[in-house]
Protein backbone atom coordinates (compact mmCIF):
# COMPACT_ATOMS: atom_id res chain seq x y z
CA UNK A 1 0.00 0.00 0.00
CA UNK A 2 1.31 3.40 -0.93
CA UNK A 3 1.05 6.45 1.23
CA UNK A 4 -1.97 7.63 -0.74
CA UNK A 5 -3.87 4.43 -0.03
CA UNK A 6 -2.83 4.58 3.61
CA UNK A 7 -4.14 8.10 3.88
CA UNK A 8 -7.46 6.95 2.40
CA UNK A 9 -7.66 4.14 4.95
CA UNK A 10 -6.93 6.59 7.76
CA UNK A 11 -9.49 9.10 6.55
CA UNK A 12 -12.16 6.41 6.11
CA UNK A 13 -11.48 5.09 9.61
CA UNK A 14 -11.85 8.60 11.04
CA UNK A 15 -15.19 9.00 9.29
CA UNK A 16 -16.30 5.57 10.47
CA UNK A 17 -15.66 6.73 14.04
CA UNK A 18 -17.59 9.93 13.39
CA UNK A 19 -20.55 8.22 11.79
CA UNK A 20 -20.72 5.50 14.45
CA UNK A 21 -20.47 8.09 17.20
CA UNK A 22 -23.39 10.02 15.73
CA UNK A 23 -25.23 6.73 15.31
CA UNK A 24 -25.08 6.25 19.10
CA UNK A 25 -26.96 9.52 19.50
CA UNK A 26 -29.23 9.56 16.46
CA UNK A 27 -29.57 5.90 15.58
CA UNK A 28 -29.70 4.23 18.98
CA UNK A 29 -31.27 6.98 21.04
CA UNK A 30 -33.30 8.80 18.38
CA UNK A 31 -31.84 12.26 18.97
CA UNK A 32 -31.16 14.12 15.72
CA UNK A 33 -28.00 16.22 15.91
CA UNK A 34 -27.10 18.62 13.11
CA UNK A 35 -23.97 19.88 14.85
CA UNK A 36 -21.83 16.80 15.32
CA UNK A 37 -18.86 18.37 13.54
CA UNK A 38 -18.52 20.90 16.37
CA UNK A 39 -17.50 18.12 18.76
CA UNK A 40 -15.19 16.69 16.10
CA UNK A 41 -13.66 20.18 15.90
CA UNK A 42 -13.44 20.64 19.66
CA UNK A 43 -11.42 17.43 19.93
CA UNK A 44 -9.25 18.40 16.95
CA UNK A 45 -8.36 21.85 18.25
CA UNK A 46 -7.81 20.65 21.82
CA UNK A 47 -5.51 17.78 20.84
CA UNK A 48 -3.61 19.94 18.34
CA UNK A 49 -2.99 22.71 20.87
CA UNK A 50 -1.81 20.19 23.43
CA UNK A 51 0.73 18.44 21.18
CA UNK A 52 1.86 21.84 19.93
CA UNK A 53 2.62 22.76 23.50
CA UNK A 54 4.68 19.62 23.91
CA UNK A 55 2.25 16.95 25.12
CA UNK A 56 2.68 13.42 23.84
CA UNK A 57 0.03 12.20 21.37
CA UNK A 58 -1.91 9.74 23.56
CA UNK A 59 -2.81 12.07 26.44
CA UNK A 60 -3.57 14.84 23.92
CA UNK A 61 -6.03 12.58 22.07
CA UNK A 62 -7.67 11.50 25.34
CA UNK A 63 -7.92 15.11 26.50
CA UNK A 64 -9.53 16.09 23.19
CA UNK A 65 -12.14 13.38 23.72
CA UNK A 66 -12.75 14.50 27.30
CA UNK A 67 -13.11 18.13 26.29
CA UNK A 68 -15.54 17.23 23.50
CA UNK A 69 -17.53 15.12 25.97
CA UNK A 70 -17.67 17.99 28.46
CA UNK A 71 -18.85 20.27 25.65
CA UNK A 72 -21.37 17.58 24.68
CA UNK A 73 -22.56 17.29 28.27
CA UNK A 74 -23.28 21.03 28.49
CA UNK A 75 -25.01 21.15 25.11
CA UNK A 76 -26.97 18.01 25.98
CA UNK A 77 -28.05 19.34 29.34
CA UNK A 78 -29.31 22.52 27.70
CA UNK A 79 -31.02 20.96 24.69
CA UNK A 80 -32.09 17.38 25.36
CA UNK A 81 -35.11 18.37 27.41
CA UNK A 82 -36.74 19.85 24.36
CA UNK A 83 -38.48 17.80 21.70
CA UNK A 84 -36.83 16.28 18.65
CA UNK A 85 -37.16 19.04 16.08
CA UNK A 86 -35.97 21.58 18.61
CA UNK A 87 -32.89 19.53 19.31
CA UNK A 88 -32.03 19.50 15.61
CA UNK A 89 -32.21 23.29 15.46
CA UNK A 90 -30.32 23.74 18.72
CA UNK A 91 -27.45 21.48 17.69
CA UNK A 92 -27.30 23.24 14.33
CA UNK A 93 -26.97 26.51 16.22
CA UNK A 94 -24.21 25.05 18.37
CA UNK A 95 -22.38 24.04 15.20
CA UNK A 96 -22.51 27.59 13.84
CA UNK A 97 -21.55 29.04 17.22
CA UNK A 98 -18.51 26.80 17.35
CA UNK A 99 -17.28 27.89 13.92
CA UNK A 100 -18.03 31.53 14.67
CA UNK A 101 -16.14 31.30 17.93
CA UNK A 102 -13.08 29.53 16.52
CA UNK A 103 -12.79 31.95 13.61
CA UNK A 104 -12.38 34.84 16.00
CA UNK A 105 -9.83 33.24 18.32
CA UNK A 106 -6.28 34.27 17.54
CA UNK A 107 -5.09 31.55 19.93
CA UNK A 108 -6.76 29.00 17.65
CA UNK A 109 -5.34 30.54 14.50
CA UNK A 110 -8.57 32.32 13.55
CA UNK A 111 -9.66 32.00 9.92
CA UNK A 112 -6.22 30.72 8.92
CA UNK A 113 -6.45 27.73 11.18
CA UNK A 114 -3.78 25.90 13.10
CA UNK A 115 -0.73 24.78 11.22
CA UNK A 116 2.49 23.18 12.33
CA UNK A 117 0.74 20.46 14.31
CA UNK A 118 3.61 18.21 15.41
CA UNK A 119 4.39 14.94 13.67
CA UNK A 120 2.66 12.10 15.50
CA UNK A 121 5.79 10.02 15.10
CA UNK A 122 3.88 6.86 14.18
CA UNK A 123 4.53 6.95 10.47
CA UNK A 124 1.71 6.50 7.95
CA UNK A 125 1.35 2.80 8.78
CA UNK A 126 1.28 3.48 12.49
CA UNK A 127 -1.36 6.19 12.22
CA UNK A 128 -3.50 4.08 9.89
CA UNK A 129 -3.23 1.13 12.28
CA UNK A 130 -4.15 3.34 15.25
CA UNK A 131 -7.21 4.89 13.57
CA UNK A 132 -8.44 1.57 12.21
CA UNK A 133 -8.05 0.00 15.67
CA UNK A 134 -9.98 2.84 17.28
CA UNK A 135 -12.68 2.68 14.59
CA UNK A 136 -12.97 -1.07 15.20
CA UNK A 137 -13.19 -0.42 18.93
CA UNK A 138 -15.99 2.09 18.29
CA UNK A 139 -17.84 -0.51 16.22
CA UNK A 140 -17.32 -3.08 18.99
CA UNK A 141 -18.68 -0.61 21.54
CA UNK A 142 -21.73 0.00 19.34
CA UNK A 143 -22.43 -3.70 19.02
CA UNK A 144 -21.96 -4.08 22.77
CA UNK A 145 -24.43 -1.29 23.56
CA UNK A 146 -27.04 -2.98 21.39
CA UNK A 147 -26.78 -6.08 23.56
CA UNK A 148 -26.92 -4.55 27.04
CA UNK A 149 -29.90 -3.25 28.98
CA UNK A 150 -28.95 0.33 28.19
CA UNK A 151 -29.37 -0.53 24.51
CA UNK A 152 -32.94 -1.65 25.18
CA UNK A 153 -33.60 1.57 27.05
CA UNK A 154 -32.13 3.64 24.19
CA UNK A 155 -34.35 1.79 21.73
CA UNK A 156 -37.41 2.52 23.86
CA UNK A 157 -36.52 6.22 24.00
CA UNK A 158 -35.96 6.37 20.25
CA UNK A 159 -39.38 4.79 19.82
CA UNK A 160 -41.50 6.77 22.27
CA UNK A 161 -40.12 8.87 25.10
CA UNK A 162 -43.33 9.05 27.11
CA UNK A 163 -43.79 5.30 27.07
CA UNK A 164 -40.15 4.82 28.05
CA UNK A 165 -40.75 7.09 31.04
CA UNK A 166 -43.85 5.17 32.03
CA UNK A 167 -41.69 2.03 32.04
CA UNK A 168 -39.41 3.58 34.66
CA UNK A 169 -36.65 4.73 32.32
CA UNK A 170 -34.93 7.97 33.25
CA UNK A 171 -35.08 9.37 29.72
CA UNK A 172 -32.97 12.48 30.31
CA UNK A 173 -30.08 10.53 31.82
CA UNK A 174 -30.04 8.02 29.02
CA UNK A 175 -30.12 10.73 26.36
CA UNK A 176 -27.32 12.57 28.11
CA UNK A 177 -25.28 9.38 28.33
CA UNK A 178 -25.70 8.74 24.60
CA UNK A 179 -24.76 12.34 23.88
CA UNK A 180 -21.64 12.25 26.06
CA UNK A 181 -20.47 8.92 24.63
CA UNK A 182 -21.08 10.08 21.06
CA UNK A 183 -19.43 13.45 21.46
CA UNK A 184 -16.42 11.92 23.26
CA UNK A 185 -15.83 9.60 20.32
CA UNK A 186 -16.25 12.48 17.86
CA UNK A 187 -13.63 14.39 19.86
CA UNK A 188 -11.26 11.44 19.69
CA UNK A 189 -11.78 11.28 15.92
CA UNK A 190 -11.01 15.02 15.84
CA UNK A 191 -7.65 14.56 17.55
CA UNK A 192 -6.75 11.85 15.07
CA UNK A 193 -7.84 14.04 12.17
CA UNK A 194 -5.74 17.00 13.38
CA UNK A 195 -2.62 14.84 13.56
CA UNK A 196 -3.41 13.17 10.28
CA UNK A 197 -3.67 16.43 8.32
CA UNK A 198 -1.40 18.41 10.69
CA UNK A 199 -3.24 21.51 9.59
CA UNK A 200 -6.80 22.38 10.53
CA UNK A 201 -9.11 25.23 9.59
CA UNK A 202 -12.51 26.09 11.10
CA UNK A 203 -14.36 25.09 7.92
CA UNK A 204 -13.21 21.50 8.32
CA UNK A 205 -15.77 21.34 11.15
CA UNK A 206 -18.65 23.27 9.62
CA UNK A 207 -22.27 22.59 8.86
CA UNK A 208 -21.62 20.66 5.65
CA UNK A 209 -19.41 18.28 7.62
CA UNK A 210 -22.16 17.77 10.22
CA UNK A 211 -24.61 17.03 7.43
CA UNK A 212 -22.14 14.70 5.69
CA UNK A 213 -21.78 12.66 8.89
CA UNK A 214 -25.55 12.50 9.25
CA UNK A 215 -25.81 11.45 5.59
CA UNK A 216 -23.44 8.55 6.27
CA UNK A 217 -25.64 7.42 9.15
CA UNK A 218 -28.88 7.68 7.19
CA UNK A 219 -27.56 6.22 3.96
CA UNK A 220 -25.85 3.39 5.86
CA UNK A 221 -29.02 2.63 7.79
CA UNK A 222 -29.91 4.55 10.91
CA UNK A 223 -29.22 2.45 14.00
CA UNK A 224 -27.37 -0.33 12.18
CA UNK A 225 -23.70 -0.52 13.17
CA UNK A 226 -22.62 -2.47 10.07
CA UNK A 227 -24.72 -0.34 7.75
CA UNK A 228 -23.35 2.92 9.13
CA UNK A 229 -19.81 1.57 8.99
CA UNK A 230 -20.28 0.67 5.33
CA UNK A 231 -22.00 3.97 4.61
CA UNK A 232 -19.09 5.93 6.09
CA UNK A 233 -16.48 3.96 4.13
CA UNK A 234 -18.34 4.24 0.83
CA UNK A 235 -19.18 7.91 1.16
CA UNK A 236 -15.63 8.78 2.19
CA UNK A 237 -13.92 6.80 -0.53
CA UNK A 238 -16.22 7.52 -3.46
CA UNK A 239 -15.27 11.18 -3.86
CA UNK A 240 -11.61 10.35 -3.25
CA UNK A 241 -11.42 7.53 -5.76
CA UNK A 242 -13.37 9.31 -8.43
CA UNK A 243 -11.86 12.75 -8.42
CA UNK A 244 -14.54 14.14 -10.66
CA UNK A 245 -17.12 13.38 -7.95
CA UNK A 246 -15.17 15.38 -5.41
CA UNK A 247 -16.41 18.68 -6.80
CA UNK A 248 -19.96 17.40 -6.57
CA UNK A 249 -19.63 15.72 -3.18
CA UNK A 250 -22.56 17.53 -1.58
CA UNK A 251 -24.65 16.92 -4.66
CA UNK A 252 -23.88 13.21 -4.41
CA UNK A 253 -24.68 13.06 -0.68
CA UNK A 254 -27.85 15.02 -1.18
CA UNK A 255 -28.99 12.86 -4.07
CA UNK A 256 -28.27 9.66 -2.17
CA UNK A 257 -30.13 10.99 0.85
CA UNK A 258 -33.20 11.69 -1.24
CA UNK A 259 -33.01 8.25 -2.86
CA UNK A 260 -32.70 6.53 0.50
CA UNK A 261 -35.56 8.48 2.04
CA UNK A 262 -37.76 7.69 -0.93
CA UNK A 263 -36.90 4.07 -1.65
CA UNK A 264 -35.13 2.56 1.35
CA UNK A 265 -35.76 4.38 4.63
CA UNK A 266 -33.72 1.67 6.37
CA UNK A 267 -30.67 2.68 4.35
CA UNK A 268 -28.11 0.19 3.03
CA UNK A 269 -28.62 -2.09 6.02
CA UNK A 270 -32.39 -2.09 5.68
CA UNK A 271 -32.18 -2.61 1.92
CA UNK A 272 -29.88 -5.59 2.26
CA UNK A 273 -32.04 -7.12 4.99
CA UNK A 274 -35.13 -6.75 2.79
CA UNK A 275 -33.27 -8.22 -0.17
CA UNK A 276 -32.01 -11.30 1.71
CA UNK A 277 -35.48 -11.82 3.14
CA UNK A 278 -36.88 -11.73 -0.38
CA UNK A 279 -34.23 -14.11 -1.72
CA UNK A 280 -34.88 -16.51 1.14
CA UNK A 281 -38.57 -16.28 0.45
CA UNK A 282 -37.96 -17.09 -3.24
CA UNK A 283 -36.00 -20.31 -2.61
Amino acid sequence: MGSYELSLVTLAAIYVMLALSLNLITGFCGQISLGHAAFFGAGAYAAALLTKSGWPLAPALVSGAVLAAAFGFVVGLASLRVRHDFLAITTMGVGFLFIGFVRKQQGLGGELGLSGIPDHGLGPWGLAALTVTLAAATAALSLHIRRVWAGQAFAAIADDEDTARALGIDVMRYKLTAFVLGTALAGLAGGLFAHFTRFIIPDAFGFTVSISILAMVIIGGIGSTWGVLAGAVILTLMPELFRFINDYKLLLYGGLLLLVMRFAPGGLAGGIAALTARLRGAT
Partner: protein
Amino acid sequence: MTALLEVEGVGVRFGGIQALDDVSFALAEGELLGLIGPNGAGKTTMLRAITGVIRPNPGRIRLAGADITDFSTDRRARTGLALTHQIVKPLRAMTARDNVALAAGHAKTTNVLAALFAIDRTKELARADELLRLVGIENHADAMPSTLPLGALKRLEVARALALDPKVLLLDEPLAGLNHVEAARLADTIVDLNRAGMSIVLIEHNLGEVMRICPRLMVLDNGRRIAMGAAKTVMEDPFVRAAYLGREAGDAAA
Protein backbone atom coordinates in the same frame (compact mmCIF):
# COMPACT_ATOMS: atom_id res chain seq x y z
CA MET B 1 -58.12 -1.24 55.35
CA THR B 2 -55.17 1.10 54.92
CA ALA B 3 -55.00 3.61 52.09
CA LEU B 4 -52.36 2.66 49.53
CA LEU B 5 -52.87 5.52 47.10
CA GLU B 6 -54.12 8.86 48.38
CA VAL B 7 -55.13 11.70 46.10
CA GLU B 8 -55.73 14.93 47.92
CA GLY B 9 -57.37 18.07 46.58
CA VAL B 10 -56.10 17.64 43.02
CA GLY B 11 -56.79 20.41 40.53
CA VAL B 12 -55.66 20.55 36.89
CA ARG B 13 -56.30 23.42 34.48
CA PHE B 14 -55.74 23.43 30.72
CA GLY B 15 -56.04 27.02 29.59
CA GLY B 16 -59.70 27.86 30.15
CA ILE B 17 -60.75 24.32 31.02
CA GLN B 18 -60.80 23.17 34.63
CA ALA B 19 -60.17 19.49 33.86
CA LEU B 20 -60.04 18.52 37.55
CA ASP B 21 -61.37 20.54 40.44
CA ASP B 22 -60.43 19.66 44.03
CA VAL B 23 -60.73 15.89 43.63
CA SER B 24 -59.76 13.62 46.50
CA PHE B 25 -59.98 9.88 46.92
CA ALA B 26 -58.15 6.98 48.44
CA LEU B 27 -57.52 3.50 47.13
CA ALA B 28 -57.26 0.81 49.78
CA GLU B 29 -54.70 -1.94 49.60
CA GLY B 30 -56.11 -4.78 47.48
CA GLU B 31 -59.06 -2.74 46.24
CA LEU B 32 -60.53 -2.62 42.72
CA LEU B 33 -61.97 0.86 42.27
CA GLY B 34 -63.98 1.82 39.20
CA LEU B 35 -63.56 5.38 37.92
CA ILE B 36 -66.38 6.39 35.63
CA GLY B 37 -67.87 9.51 34.14
CA PRO B 38 -68.98 10.96 30.80
CA ASN B 39 -66.51 11.87 28.03
CA GLY B 40 -64.25 14.71 29.02
CA ALA B 41 -65.03 14.26 32.72
CA GLY B 42 -61.33 14.27 33.62
CA LYS B 43 -60.70 10.56 34.17
CA THR B 44 -57.61 10.28 31.98
CA THR B 45 -56.37 13.57 33.38
CA MET B 46 -56.66 12.09 36.88
CA LEU B 47 -54.51 9.11 35.91
CA ARG B 48 -51.99 11.41 34.22
CA ALA B 49 -51.78 13.50 37.38
CA ILE B 50 -51.20 10.34 39.42
CA THR B 51 -48.44 9.09 37.12
CA GLY B 52 -46.85 12.53 36.91
CA VAL B 53 -47.28 13.21 33.20
CA ILE B 54 -49.01 16.41 34.26
CA ARG B 55 -48.47 18.22 37.53
CA PRO B 56 -51.54 18.88 39.64
CA ASN B 57 -51.90 22.39 40.93
CA PRO B 58 -52.92 22.32 43.68
CA GLY B 59 -52.94 18.80 45.10
CA ARG B 60 -50.82 16.07 46.67
CA ILE B 61 -50.42 12.40 45.76
CA ARG B 62 -49.24 9.80 48.24
CA LEU B 63 -48.27 6.21 47.54
CA ALA B 64 -47.89 3.82 50.48
CA GLY B 65 -47.58 6.81 52.80
CA ALA B 66 -44.82 8.54 50.80
CA ASP B 67 -45.53 11.88 49.13
CA ILE B 68 -44.69 11.37 45.45
CA THR B 69 -46.07 14.67 44.13
CA ASP B 70 -42.60 15.93 43.24
CA PHE B 71 -41.39 12.68 41.66
CA SER B 72 -40.79 12.44 37.90
CA THR B 73 -42.90 9.98 35.89
CA ASP B 74 -40.12 7.44 35.59
CA ARG B 75 -39.41 7.60 39.32
CA ARG B 76 -43.11 7.08 40.07
CA ALA B 77 -43.05 4.04 37.80
CA ARG B 78 -40.10 2.66 39.73
CA THR B 79 -41.85 3.50 43.01
CA GLY B 80 -44.81 1.33 42.08
CA LEU B 81 -47.27 3.03 39.73
CA ALA B 82 -48.08 1.36 36.44
CA LEU B 83 -50.46 2.60 33.79
CA THR B 84 -52.10 1.17 30.70
CA HIS B 85 -52.99 3.74 28.08
CA GLN B 86 -56.43 4.45 26.69
CA ILE B 87 -54.78 4.49 23.26
CA VAL B 88 -52.34 1.55 23.20
CA LYS B 89 -48.69 2.52 23.09
CA PRO B 90 -46.53 -0.51 22.42
CA LEU B 91 -42.88 0.09 21.55
CA ARG B 92 -43.18 -0.64 17.83
CA ALA B 93 -39.56 -1.57 17.21
CA MET B 94 -39.55 -4.59 19.53
CA THR B 95 -41.51 -7.81 19.93
CA ALA B 96 -44.31 -8.22 22.44
CA ARG B 97 -41.98 -10.26 24.65
CA ASP B 98 -39.24 -7.60 24.53
CA ASN B 99 -41.80 -4.91 25.39
CA VAL B 100 -42.71 -6.77 28.56
CA ALA B 101 -39.14 -7.84 29.35
CA LEU B 102 -37.97 -4.22 29.20
CA ALA B 103 -40.52 -3.28 31.85
CA ALA B 104 -39.59 -6.37 33.87
CA GLY B 105 -35.99 -5.15 33.81
CA HIS B 106 -36.83 -1.87 35.51
CA ALA B 107 -34.33 -2.62 38.28
CA LYS B 108 -31.61 -3.09 35.64
CA THR B 109 -32.38 0.08 33.70
CA THR B 110 -32.53 2.29 36.80
CA ASN B 111 -28.80 2.96 36.84
CA VAL B 112 -27.53 3.99 33.41
CA LEU B 113 -23.91 3.06 34.04
CA ALA B 114 -24.80 -0.38 35.34
CA ALA B 115 -27.16 -0.81 32.37
CA LEU B 116 -24.22 -0.24 30.00
CA PHE B 117 -22.67 -3.47 31.27
CA ALA B 118 -25.61 -5.70 32.21
CA ILE B 119 -26.44 -8.17 29.46
CA ASP B 120 -28.27 -11.10 31.03
CA ARG B 121 -32.02 -11.03 30.33
CA THR B 122 -32.88 -14.63 31.17
CA LYS B 123 -34.97 -13.81 34.22
CA GLU B 124 -36.79 -10.92 32.57
CA LEU B 125 -37.62 -12.88 29.43
CA ALA B 126 -38.99 -15.70 31.57
CA ARG B 127 -41.04 -13.19 33.53
CA ALA B 128 -42.31 -11.69 30.27
CA ASP B 129 -43.46 -15.11 29.05
CA GLU B 130 -45.17 -15.73 32.36
CA LEU B 131 -47.06 -12.41 32.15
CA LEU B 132 -48.00 -12.88 28.50
CA ARG B 133 -49.46 -16.24 29.50
CA LEU B 134 -51.29 -14.61 32.42
CA VAL B 135 -53.04 -12.16 30.11
CA GLY B 136 -53.56 -14.86 27.50
CA ILE B 137 -51.37 -13.73 24.59
CA GLU B 138 -48.41 -16.09 24.99
CA ASN B 139 -48.86 -17.20 21.36
CA HIS B 140 -48.06 -13.62 20.26
CA ALA B 141 -44.80 -13.37 22.22
CA ASP B 142 -42.56 -13.14 19.15
CA ALA B 143 -44.87 -10.90 17.12
CA MET B 144 -44.13 -7.27 16.37
CA PRO B 145 -46.86 -5.04 17.81
CA SER B 146 -47.80 -3.68 14.38
CA THR B 147 -49.04 -7.15 13.40
CA LEU B 148 -51.24 -7.64 16.48
CA PRO B 149 -55.00 -7.06 16.70
CA LEU B 150 -56.29 -4.46 19.15
CA GLY B 151 -57.45 -7.08 21.64
CA ALA B 152 -53.92 -8.47 21.95
CA LEU B 153 -52.40 -4.99 22.18
CA LYS B 154 -54.76 -4.12 25.05
CA ARG B 155 -53.58 -7.23 26.86
CA LEU B 156 -49.96 -6.43 26.05
CA GLU B 157 -50.45 -3.07 27.81
CA VAL B 158 -51.65 -4.91 30.90
CA ALA B 159 -48.78 -7.42 30.82
CA ARG B 160 -46.23 -4.65 30.43
CA ALA B 161 -47.72 -2.66 33.30
CA LEU B 162 -47.66 -5.75 35.53
CA ALA B 163 -44.01 -6.31 34.65
CA LEU B 164 -43.17 -3.16 36.60
CA ASP B 165 -44.25 -5.06 39.75
CA PRO B 166 -46.51 -2.15 40.65
CA LYS B 167 -48.14 -1.45 43.97
CA VAL B 168 -51.03 0.13 42.09
CA LEU B 169 -52.23 -0.68 38.59
CA LEU B 170 -54.01 2.14 36.74
CA LEU B 171 -56.08 0.94 33.78
CA ASP B 172 -57.43 3.51 31.30
CA GLU B 173 -60.30 1.97 29.33
CA PRO B 174 -58.71 -1.45 28.82
CA LEU B 175 -61.97 -2.81 27.39
CA ALA B 176 -62.62 -0.05 24.85
CA GLY B 177 -62.61 -1.30 21.28
CA LEU B 178 -62.97 -4.95 22.29
CA ASN B 179 -65.99 -7.03 21.33
CA HIS B 180 -68.34 -8.46 23.92
CA VAL B 181 -66.53 -11.72 24.44
CA GLU B 182 -63.04 -10.20 24.49
CA ALA B 183 -64.15 -7.49 26.91
CA ALA B 184 -65.68 -10.01 29.31
CA ARG B 185 -62.53 -12.14 29.17
CA LEU B 186 -60.21 -9.21 29.86
CA ALA B 187 -62.54 -8.08 32.67
CA ASP B 188 -62.22 -11.55 34.18
CA THR B 189 -58.45 -11.28 33.94
CA ILE B 190 -58.65 -7.98 35.83
CA VAL B 191 -60.73 -9.62 38.55
CA ASP B 192 -58.20 -12.46 38.80
CA LEU B 193 -55.38 -9.98 39.19
CA ASN B 194 -57.28 -8.18 41.91
CA ARG B 195 -58.05 -11.45 43.70
CA ALA B 196 -54.34 -12.21 43.60
CA GLY B 197 -53.80 -9.02 45.61
CA MET B 198 -53.27 -6.29 43.01
CA SER B 199 -54.71 -2.86 43.86
CA ILE B 200 -56.37 -1.42 40.77
CA VAL B 201 -58.02 1.77 39.55
CA LEU B 202 -60.12 0.99 36.50
CA ILE B 203 -61.44 3.65 34.13
CA GLU B 204 -64.15 2.20 31.93
CA HIS B 205 -67.09 3.28 29.82
CA ASN B 206 -68.40 -0.27 29.61
CA LEU B 207 -70.77 0.14 32.56
CA GLY B 208 -72.03 -3.42 32.35
CA GLU B 209 -68.57 -4.84 33.01
CA VAL B 210 -67.81 -2.13 35.56
CA MET B 211 -70.94 -3.00 37.55
CA ARG B 212 -70.07 -6.66 37.29
CA ILE B 213 -66.49 -6.44 38.59
CA CYS B 214 -66.05 -3.23 40.65
CA PRO B 215 -67.40 -3.26 44.21
CA ARG B 216 -66.80 0.48 44.62
CA LEU B 217 -67.10 3.37 42.16
CA MET B 218 -66.05 6.96 41.92
CA VAL B 219 -67.83 9.23 39.43
CA LEU B 220 -66.31 12.32 37.87
CA ASP B 221 -68.25 14.91 35.91
CA ASN B 222 -66.80 18.13 34.54
CA GLY B 223 -63.71 17.66 36.65
CA ARG B 224 -65.60 17.22 39.90
CA ARG B 225 -66.16 14.16 42.00
CA ILE B 226 -69.92 13.79 42.08
CA ALA B 227 -70.23 10.40 43.75
CA MET B 228 -68.22 7.74 45.54
CA GLY B 229 -69.32 4.54 47.19
CA ALA B 230 -70.70 1.07 46.66
CA ALA B 231 -71.34 0.47 42.96
CA LYS B 232 -75.06 -0.10 43.30
CA THR B 233 -75.69 2.94 45.47
CA VAL B 234 -73.67 5.14 43.14
CA MET B 235 -75.55 4.04 40.06
CA GLU B 236 -78.84 4.87 41.72
CA ASP B 237 -77.63 8.33 42.70
CA PRO B 238 -79.77 10.96 40.95
CA PHE B 239 -76.73 13.21 40.29
CA VAL B 240 -74.93 10.39 38.54
CA ARG B 241 -77.99 9.56 36.46
CA ALA B 242 -78.37 13.22 35.56
CA ALA B 243 -74.72 13.47 34.53
CA TYR B 244 -75.05 10.52 32.15
CA LEU B 245 -78.56 11.33 30.96
CA GLY B 246 -77.78 15.02 30.56
CA ARG B 247 -74.86 14.05 28.42
CA GLU B 248 -76.93 11.70 26.31
CA ALA B 249 -79.70 14.28 25.94
CA GLY B 250 -77.06 16.81 24.90
CA ASP B 251 -75.60 14.36 22.37
CA ALA B 252 -79.02 13.61 20.99
CA ALA B 253 -79.78 17.31 20.60
CA ALA B 254 -76.44 17.94 18.84
